[in-house]
């Protein structure tokens, strides 16, 4: 990642596509340290925080939230890429497609039109792609911050490292590493609670296992994620059905290739499974 020139203020933008805005709030959650950040970084575009806007940049660093869900967004992200020296995706939607990416399986359940008809009162106003995909499927991405939402600590680390000109410490290790360092008790081993922690990138400091529930994978698969082995254990030892296994993997990062592999192997996400489609056809006949 090119280091912005320290003599000029670093021009930063925060923009969003198909998303809930939660990751943008992580910037505001930084708190008093924002004052320091303001010394080094000049935020020129941040719709969630300020009405003083330069939506066209140019940007030294552009943070992008959300997945690409419409034709217009696909067009716009290519335009913004040209206006940004460094593009960093933030959050599960921008990095993996997010929960909305699950609609890619809609083909088993009446297709995207069926979804739109079921959800919207006036479907004719909705113009959407059949898929919601990560930003990296459309343009080159320089770095990513994961999570749903992203972790403020990781954001500060990224901003700090960039300011100093070093590589940010964003480990690709499992949630388990942070869970164990924090002295938490494994919810899967001690309670039989299905947990995605072993195959998911840390960064959240094992938030969910600390609340006695399994990780649901919002940071997305880590390097060497062995989803199939974990899925086997869910089935054989925790007694989950294939559909239940697929449901665990088909969460906020279900469209990530490592998660998709398991979801496909287990027949697709709940409500969008191949046998659901067969049932629907059977019903029609």
């Amino acid at each position: 990642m090119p280091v912005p020139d320290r003599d000029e203020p670093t021009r930063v933008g925060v923009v969003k596509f198909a998303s809930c805005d939660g990751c943008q709030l992580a910037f505001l959650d930084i708190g008093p340290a924002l004052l320091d950040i303001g010394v080094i970084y000049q935020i020129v575009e941040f719709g969630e925080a300020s009405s003083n806007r330069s939506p066209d940049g140019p940007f030294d660093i552009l943070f992008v939230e959300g997945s690409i869900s419409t034709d217009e967004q696909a067009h716009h992200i290519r335009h913004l890429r040209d206006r940004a020296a460094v593009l960093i995706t933030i959050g599960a939607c921008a990095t993996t497609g997010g929960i909305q990416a699950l609609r890619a399986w809609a083909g088993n359940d009446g297709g995207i039109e069926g979804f739109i008809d079921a959800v919207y009162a006036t479907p004719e106003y909705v113009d959407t792609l059949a898929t919601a995909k990560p930003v990296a499927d459309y343009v080159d991405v320089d770095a990513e911050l994961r999570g749903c939402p992203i972790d403020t600590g990781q954001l500060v680390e990224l901003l700090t490292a960039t300011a100093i000109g070093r590589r940010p410490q964003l480990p690709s290790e499992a949630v388990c590493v942070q869970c164990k360092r924090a002295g938490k008790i494994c919810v899967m081993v001690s309670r039989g609670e299905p947990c995605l922690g072993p195959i998911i990138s840390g960064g959240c400091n094992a938030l969910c296992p600390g609340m006695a529930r399994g990780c649901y994978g919002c940071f997305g698969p880590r390097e060497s994620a062995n989803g199939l082995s974990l899925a086997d254990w869910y089935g054989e030892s925790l007694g989950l059905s294939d559909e239940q296994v697929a449901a665990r993997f088909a969460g906020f990062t279900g469209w990530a290739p490592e998660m998709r592999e398991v979801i496909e192997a287990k027949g697709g996400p709940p409500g969008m499974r191949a046998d659901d489609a067969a049932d629907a056809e059977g019903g029609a006949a």
Partner: protein
Amino acid sequence: MIDLTTRAWIAREDLDRLIALLREDGRKVVGPTVRDSAIVYDEVGSTADLPTGITDEQAPGRYRISKDSDGSAGKSFDFASSPTSWKSFTFPSKVPIAKALRDGDRLAYEEVSHDSPRMAFLGVRACDIAAMEIHDDVLAGGPYIDEDYADRRGKAFIVAVGCARPSGTCFCASMGTGPEVSSGFDIALVELDDGYVAKAGSEAGQKLLDRLGLEEASSVQMHAAAGIGVEARARMAEQLGVATEGLRDRLMAQLESTGWDEIGERCLACTNCTMVCPTCFCTDVTQTSDLFGTETVSERQWASCFTLDFARVAHGNFRPEVKDRYRQWLTHKFSTWVDQFGSYGCVGCGRCITWCPVGIDVRKSLQQVAPVKPPMAGTLKPVPVSANPGSYSIATVGDVWPETKNVYTLLLKDLPEAVCCGTPGQFLMLDLPGFSAVPISISRYREGEIFLTIRTEGATTRAITSLEPGSQIGLRGPVGKGWPLAEAFGRDVVIVAGGIGLPPLRPLVDEIFKSRGHFGRVRLFYGARTPKDLLFTEELKAWAARDDISIGVTVDRAKVGTWSGAVGVVTHLFDREPIDGSHTTAYICGPERMMSAVANSLAGQGILPERLFLSMERQMQCGIGLCGHCQMGKNFVCKDGPVFSRRELGEMLDVEGL
């Protein structure tokens, strides 16, 4: 003066006084307590915080606690091991180690104080004491000492409690670390139904016991306490352990085993095994600074060889695959740790098994990758038929045929079952009453039958080889240590036979064919005096026709026109053929001088002395190490051999008259 003989009795209610005294001394008392559906170690204020009446149940990937239901409901230490080890207190997951200040081009480092609390650990198991002692070697054994560890450990007061209830994942007995507590404590307790039998292990421990003003434990109480460890040991004996004999070498010989791939398919590389391991000590140093880089704090935090970043360098990664990382971990624990620190890096606490999210069992991994015995069908542990030198079992001679002018093969049937379960390289004591018993190696195992190939040297062997089919013969065995075939797993094999040395090697060849995939290239070199002395010539031809073994044959001398093969000593055969010594195991049998020459020649090609195996001959009368005839240096050849590695033999091999 530490009184190591007497034991004090601490009534159940008096344990609170012990805790109170430790606290009075300014110590933070850490012991077992229930939190988040687990028995964890945390600060305890009194016995009310202990998990009284609670026990645990552990299996691969599974941990549960429950109310004690088997009558020991009043006990406070009636569980196996905690989810995390004492490492959390002696070597915390994250500690600040340095602070740096940077002002322009000026630097300053600030000392970080390691002023940790004085702690007392209550309820430390034998396995965990062993783990602390291992950490002492690694982290404080020098030349560089981890200050924070040394500070915490040096201040810690250890109250050990003997383990009464090993779980399904415990294997301390096979690692030699427990279950009985024998050293490394200030006070050791054994918990009985109504109190504790206590003994001091240090001056500090003795002083504390003195301050409690205790009665001596009664002989009944001491007897009951001794029984606790025996029972725990018995419990573990019924479950899977780790066969440690030769483990260090067995494991390192299997670096290319396909077993790693199989485990790598299941392993999540999630690091849980290393995090819960009480001896794993690898760490990262992370630096955190302010936005301007003026103040940087370095922290030491637990790291794991299972993460990708662990072995990353500028140009790539040394351990990209999960199986690489698993191999690194397992071989460190059970092999290279021995070379580095003089012990295994495993104490058998079983945490890595219980807390593996997919239940990978280190005991099974070791069996899978480095089995003690070759995984061959029908090969059972050899059982001597009798230990009495005068008693023999009876078998029937099925057939006798000549191999050469003076070598005969006997086929024996109606055998005791144990005989058929022998291993290649073992021998029998053969007895024809009236003659002295003779040791004869087994030249083939076949369903319910064995072959003995015998050279007629004297009256006994002449009498035996003259027996008619149907005659009975006495035998004992199989006895002795045979060829260690596992040493050749994953390697090339070189077999060298001289003269009558071929028969003891034939069952080895048979076994190799049965599990041919375990070995690399296999070569057999055989030398005899003359073409007429060659044994098993038809079989040699059949082997030579196979493409999974190569055969070289030579004779010392041959009449012109009778022999078209090689002439000369057997070493000439492989002198001409390159052998990759670093990946080869060799098995040699023949006259002692021939074996010595062959071993020297093969050693010259790079085969390590621990992978050169020779079968020695001495006078053997009993075959079971009782009669003393066959002593060679520190060994009885019959019992400790006849097969030895070149390393075991050392200087003895070339000493005349030994």
